[in-house]
């Protein structure tokens, strides 16, 4: 499973409790749509650390890194490349 697929599937199952791909699009703002709330961010970071194997630094905990599936995927890609 590629990382985009893994991330999307986590968002769908863990926050929206569904398998329906159409429930969220990759560019949707997860915060503005209420998919992720303040504690949801903690769950997302835990997932990235445990299942994707990256460590999120304190100064990276900003909405622009996590606000959509697209931005999470590019954040992960940047971290993998660095």
């Amino acid at each position: 499973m590629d990382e985009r697929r893994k991330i999307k599937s986590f968002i769908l199952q863990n926050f929206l409790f569904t398998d329906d791909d159409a429930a969220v699009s990759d560019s949707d703002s997860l915060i503005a749509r209420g998919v992720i709330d303040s504690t949801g961010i903690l769950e997302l970071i835990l997932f990235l650390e445990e299942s994707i194997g990256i460590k999120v630094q304190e100064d990276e905990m900003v909405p622009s890194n996590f606000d959509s599936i697209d931005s999470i995927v590019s954040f992960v890609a940047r971290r993998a490349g660095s």
Partner: protein
Amino acid sequence: MCGIAGFVDMERRVAEGRRQLELMIHTLSHRGPDGYGFHLDDCVGLAHARLSIIDLSTGDQPIRNENGDCLVVFNGEIFNYIELRASLEVAGHRFYTRSDTEVIVHLYEEYGDNFVAHLNGQFAIALWDSTRRRLVLARDRVGIRPLFYMERGTRLWFASEVKALLAADRRAARLAPEGIAQTFCFWSAIDPQTAFQDIKSLPPGHVLTVEASGTRHTRQYWDWQFPEVGSFPAAQSIDETAMQLRGLLRDAVRLQLRADVPVGAYLSGGLDSAIIASLGIQPNGPRLRTFSVSFSDAEFDESPYQQQMADFLGTDHSTVRCRPSDIGACFPQLVYHAEAPLLRTAAAPLMLLSRAVREHGIKVVLTGEGADEVFGGYDIFKEAKIRRFWARQPASRWRPSLLGRLYGYLDNSPVDNAGMTRAFFERGLSNANGATFAHEPRWTTSASSLRFLSTGMRASLGPWTPIAWYAHQLPVTVAHISPMARDQYVEAHTLLAGYLLSSQGDRVAMANSVEGRYPFLDHRVIEFGNALPDRYKLRGLKEKYILRRAMAGMLPDNILNRIKQPYRAPDNESFFQAGQPLEYVADLMSGDRIRAAGYFDAGAVGRLLDKCRAGRVRGFANNQAFVGILSTMLLDELFVRGNTVLRSGHERPDALTHSLSTDSLVSD
């Protein structure tokens, strides 16, 4: 305290009326275990279940006037009955009991339907005027005592609880999609809506009349009123105001101590209950009996403060230690009493507490409920103040950082991270003058539970946007009061009346035949607080400022200056042991049961259950969804399907609380 039930039908005689009254009132025996009273004639039936508190020997209801043409059944207390009686006697009325109830019929003779305006108390009243052949139903100003009704054609039934109405007509045992959906957003259905399709709740501060012609009319006689912006009278000095408030609170407590049985008090560890308990100590009176809930989990526990207050006041204090497993075990019984879906478990420990109160022989307790609504104690008021301040300069980085001062008591605080705080609270910022501005973050979090509804439920709700819908229910006058007053108005009409005073108030106390009393909700205290400028309540970010000032020197400094900690209890973890759901939870949350009941999407509920089981649920949204779904399924099981095993908690209140072992009840 008591339970009432009855019916009226101006056109047709009710067949087997006496039998129907008995069926109804017997479901309310927990509210009034000390005896029943009935009245039946051609078109009306009144029933009463009594819990004797004032006038133990002659207070049996219905109570009548001098010539017997006016009768009343009543649940609650009229605290100013002594003063009312004196003035009614001067006016020529003769009394045959010493009860508070009797003033009602004479006030009605004097003032007609406006009798309610003279009452200082907490009440649900059914009054039958046999001369004019009319029924008057009335509910207290803020909704301390419940009153439900059901209409079918020419007939109307009323009762203190839904279960009595279901006893009159089983067909009413159907849940209302609107009631469930409203609860999932606002924590309770909004009056007159209830969780049941055919059953309405008489809103607080309202009178419902049924005339001889059959005409029904509902009228509001009181509401939370705030001065229009710019119309505040020249403010007195804060010290004068504080001293007036101290005197008023003393008087409210003095009236609420009236009873022919001992009155105890709850100590939560916070400021409000400390104030009430300290004012409840009578010079040369018996040692005050106080009670508290403590938790094994430190995030919820406030026992050091409770013990400190008990020591300071020298009360005879008992603590019920509550474990998550106690909550899971008593939850079905809680839903049986609440008769509504619940989004949190916090009412459960209070039901265990009232049981302990009753076991110690106490029937009446004073509580600190209401101070946060009247004097601006909740974080939601501070949060809204900061968000409004921020909305004036939306680009500011410093203004939203003030939110970081809130919610220090949470393990997973929504303000732990500045950037996230900003993103989370930014929503709705452009609507800073909207009537629901303060409540939007809370309601949006709760309403995320709506995604668990089944497609059938969504279809029956149609295109419903909860927050806009609620804003539309508000009176237009709220636009003219201050933003904070608006927030208080909304809070008083949603969380206070709908949840704190019912599921977490009347119902959990009356489950064990205990009456709660609320001096902060004496309408004189509310009117005093509402007339104050906002800055007397929320001074900077210091909440309940005037109240602290009023009590200066009367309480320990750390209690007097303590920051508000909301009362909470462990949620989803109460329903799992070693990763496995409790037996009834596994059954009700299974795919088959969820599909058969039809309220929720079985796939989504299954995933939520898995997440809970794995111990990965934190934060409010998922916890509220879980507790909301489980309680709705219990409501269906208990009332729609009529499960008698879980309901046996009603016949034997101990049946479902066996795990609250006696050794967990610590007395000193």
